[in-house]
């Protein structure tokens, strides 16, 4: 199990542990099957080329899942991912490594919860942020109530 973060140990600017991904065409087929998204641009190269794409491209929702994985890891078993927002700004293709990254923007207590707002994104091998977003996690506190 990954390290459990506590509210008190984080400050704005803290970098969330990055998550490296190496999506393959096989993963796109698996994701199509598991999610039920069978749009052919994600696994049929001829279809993708005929639709003015460079080849098959990643499902936006798969990149959403990568960011969800990073944030659920960050929240840990004792925390909770409360909000997750992603925007698909750029296409990503299989065979190009991606990195999910993020940093803490703000922490605060609201409604009795210890909350941490984060800026998150996926960047491609050129360092372009193809999938920016934001997230809020509830973290456990070391404070005794």
């Amino acid at each position, binding site marked *: *199990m990954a390290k459990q973060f506590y509210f008190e140990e984080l400050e704005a600017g803290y970098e969330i542990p990055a998550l490296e*991904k190496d999506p393959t065409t096989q*993963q796109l087929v*698996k*994701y199509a*099957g*598991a*999610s*039920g*998204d069978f749009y052919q641009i994600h696994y049929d190269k001829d279809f993708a080329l005929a639709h003015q794409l460079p080849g098959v491209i990643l*499902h*936006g*929702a*798969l990149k*959403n*899942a*990568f960011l*969800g*994985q990073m*944030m*659920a*890891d960050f929240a840990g*078993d*004792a925390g*909770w*991912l*409360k*909000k*997750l*927002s*992603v*925007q*698909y700004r750029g296409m990503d293709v299989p065979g190009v490594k991606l990195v999910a990254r993020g940093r803490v923007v703000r922490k605060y207590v609201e409604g009795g919860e210890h909350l941490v707002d984060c800026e998150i994104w996926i960047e491609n091998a050129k360092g372009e942020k193809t999938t920016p*977003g934001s997230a809020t996690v509830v973290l456990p506190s070391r404070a005794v109530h």
Partner: protein
Amino acid sequence: MANKVVTDEVKAQIGTRGEPRVYEIERGAIRRFAEAIGDPNPLFNDEQAARDTRFGGMIAPPTFCRSLGSGIPQVKLDLPGFRALDGGSDWEYRKPIQPGDRITVQSRIAEIRETAGRLGPMVFIVVETSYTNQFGQLCVTQRSTVIRY
């Protein structure tokens, strides 16, 4: 700028609901989804390990609800083509979804707006989908944006 595509008639579709659908959540489907996205988190894969957490067992990963298709109401638009892009999603998580849950999925057209794009009018359609468990507890809300152009 006056809307070219999103007329008052089109806007009248805001609030339209799709047919609710009910899904029984299978442990195997959660594991398969976790495997497909390459997420080894024991909470999503290992019932034994997940028993010892405060969840008392496996839960679904954050975007698992993408596998629970919703009866999204089709928005009628007067556009020359049928090109559509997934613009992104905003999720809110209130309660975990666990194996054995019966989840009711309900979609609603929340927003329809238009901007001028490079290739002509672009229409942003926001669909809000709620995922409610068998106890009537709202577990997850997803607002997804589809871009039609």
